[in-house]
């Protein structure tokens, strides 16, 4: 309260005792909690495996049980369904590939057709939060020529380890058969993938990089590559760049190895290695990198992970170069 000031008219009668206010706030949050408990539980389950996740799941679970038994979770579920929101379970299931593939396994002379102004290449570009800025840059770099028609759909905080946050297999399966079909898929995952992973049989691999973890992650990467396969279609798999944190960098290098190996055995996949583009002369992370024209520019976000525009542009040019080469565009 400001002293000396008479109470303004619009405030008269609106002052309430603090105890009653606390009751209203606590009551509101409690009701909101019951209405929203299933969603809170789902989000807690989507956290990286570990103690923090267990604690939050433990907190929300009883509320979710009560909420479900009283049907209080229904309004939210209906709304989510109407808006096509919400994820699925935590099992990474690869749908059977529906796209058409010729019986002959021999690779064609040219993976993807050469575009013209009348029939530009339809390109889908997406993935995790790394793809936000990079994809924007790609749309700009690729869009100028009139030969490419890019569609940019990143999903922040998504990845391949945790389908319970965003179900990429389901989404990519849908995109693979969309009409008119996409000629090129540019995908990038991994920035959120350095965390515990669960096999379909329920086996948990807590530590990223362990033999069991790599085997399950490899199955998923290979599965996504196969899912996107179609005649006359190019899949560009973009590797992760070096990160400021050494631990995160090691994880990215480990996953890049998986991408590289799986891409190598699939003629329709090209792996684009961003790593060398974002290290300094000593081979280390540096936010400032000498660009193609020799000028040193700020490439990375202060978080030491994401790109800023210049970094996105640099990565986008590398990706576009690969697509141009495959499509035989000068």
């Amino acid at each position: 309260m400001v002293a000396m000031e008479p109470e303004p008219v619009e405030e008269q009668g609106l002052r309430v005792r603090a105890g009653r206010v606390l009751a209203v706030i606590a009551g509101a949050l409690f009701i909101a909690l019951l209405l929203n408990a299933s969603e809170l539980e789902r989000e807690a389950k989507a956290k990286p495996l570990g103690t923090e996740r267990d604690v939050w799941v433990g907190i929300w679970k009883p509320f979710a049980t009560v909420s479900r038994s009283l049907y209080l979770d229904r309004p939210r579920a209906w709304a989510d369904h109407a808006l096509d929101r919400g994820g699925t379970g935590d099992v990474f299931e690869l749908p059977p590939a529906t796209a058409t593939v010729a019986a002959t396994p021999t690779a064609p002379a040219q993976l993807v057709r050469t575009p013209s102004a009348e029939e530009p290449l339809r390109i889908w570009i997406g993935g995790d939060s790394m793809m936000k800025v990079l994809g924007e840059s790609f749309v700009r770099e690729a869009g100028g020529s009139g030969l490419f028609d890019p569609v940019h759909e990143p999903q922040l905080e998504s990845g391949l380890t945790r389908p319970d946050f965003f179900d990429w297999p389901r989404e990519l399966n849908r995109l693979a058969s969309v009409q008119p079909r996409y000629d090129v898929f540019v995908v990038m995952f991994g920035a959120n993938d350095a965390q515990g992973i669960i096999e379909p049989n329920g086996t948990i691999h807590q530590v990223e990089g362990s033999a069991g973890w790599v085997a399950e992650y490899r199955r998923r990467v290979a599965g996504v590559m196969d899912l996107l396969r179609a005649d006359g279609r190019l899949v560009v798999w973009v590797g992760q760049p070096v990160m400021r944190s050494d631990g995160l960098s090691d994880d990215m290098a480990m996953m890049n190895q998986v991408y590289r190996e799986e891409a190598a055995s699939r003629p329709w996949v090209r792996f684009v290695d961003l790593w060398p583009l974002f290290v300094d002369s000593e081979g280390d992370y540096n936010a400032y990198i000498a660009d193609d024209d020799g000028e040193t520019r700020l490439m990375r976000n202060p978080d030491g992970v994401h790109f800023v525009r210049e970094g996105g542009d640099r990565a986008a040019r590398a990706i576009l170069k690969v697509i141009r080469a495959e499509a035989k565009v000068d």
Partner: protein
Amino acid sequence: MLFPTVDFAIFFVVVFAIAWTIRPYHLWWRVFLVAASWFFYGFWEPAFVLLLVGSTAANWAIGHDLSRMKDVEGRLNTPGRALLAFGVALNLATLGYFKYYGFFAEEINDLFGLVGAGEVIPLRQITLPVAISFFTFHAISYLVDIARNDIEEPMSPLDFSLYLSFFPHLVAGPIVRVTEFAPQIREPLGERLVLAVPAFQLIVFGLFKKVVISSYLANEIADPVFAAPGQYGSLEILVGVYAYAIQIFADFSGYTDIAIGCALLLGVKFPQNFDQPYRAFSLQDFWRRWHMTLSRWLRDYLYIPLGGNRGTKAFIYRNLALTMIFGGLWHGAALTFVAWGAIHGFGLVIERELRERYEGRLGRFAVVWQWLITFHVVCLAWIFFRAETFGTAWEMLWRVLTAWDGAGALSPLLLIVIAGSIAAQFLPDRLSGSLRISFSRLAPAAQAATLAVALVAIDILRPGGRLALHLLPVLR
């Protein structure tokens, strides 16, 4: 932690309960609020708390000394003036190091590059502590207020700590004055009475603006258009710019509304920060409605010290332009922000000239034109504020005028949201007043249920991806 999170909701309920319980123990109440604020800040990065504490200690000590360095008439003596200059410079230097190092290093290196010199200043990326722009401005205002005798006596270390770090205004304002803040925390407790209904209204509508409207417009059109304008036609770019105008208003005013509401629940009244800015009929009017606590800070601690309204016309215009350009640079370390400030600065100057010439000679429908022109000058400035480079800004302006094709990116929902948001700027105040009265008549259980449904609805409508909570450049 950020306001629209479960973490903050839990934090706030605990703080609310404890703060009102110990409110009669005036000392402990303030100690508790300072501790809670430091915890809130340390949630981002514990090391930054040291910076906040360091700034608090240095500014308190300087303020304490300043108050004793005055002559009989109460004016600062010569050493006092030197100390004030030092104090302001110290604050600006700290802000400058964290916020503008990269900007100046790049610009200076470019300059030297022209004459063939290499990298004169090493390029390093410095992590910018959250909130530093705001507590720096709070600290400067405190020192200047002491020098000007706007504050009768310096604050105690505890009160000053609370002033600088009080968590509702810490991260993104509003910029509260000592003269507004100090009396409220000195007040001995009467009854534990809370202006709860206006606070709930501010918080719920603030969340809706920030989490739903702002994020939706950013994802749907503003981000893609500003990232690759070459892909969009005239109409799409125009709508993208309108969308950004709404987005930044919804984001920023939403955040400060939540701040004002939270402070109100804790018994501290903050000044209003936004007052339907897009209903303004002139730029001058716009700045009385947009980020009002920043405007008055710039007026009192920059425009007036520069000379303000006293002097020749050219002198006044210089002051206006300088103030706005500096205000632009405060929002972000790039020349595009300077351009944003310059458009407003020169716009204000031109507006004054026009007003002198045509005042009282305008026709009946002039207000429509005045509104349209004001809104579009503000939007023009937003293009430079949001665009990453001048190249992007010019490309957008060029394409608005020339690229007469395509409207595929525009959905009916998008247009409805934009039109509705602009229309909402013209809603009369009494509407929100009657909403408050109806809500206050509800039984507590019904109030709780209403708030709960609103919160869940906001959560359902939130666009996917938690990072979509768009942080303004000014948060940094």
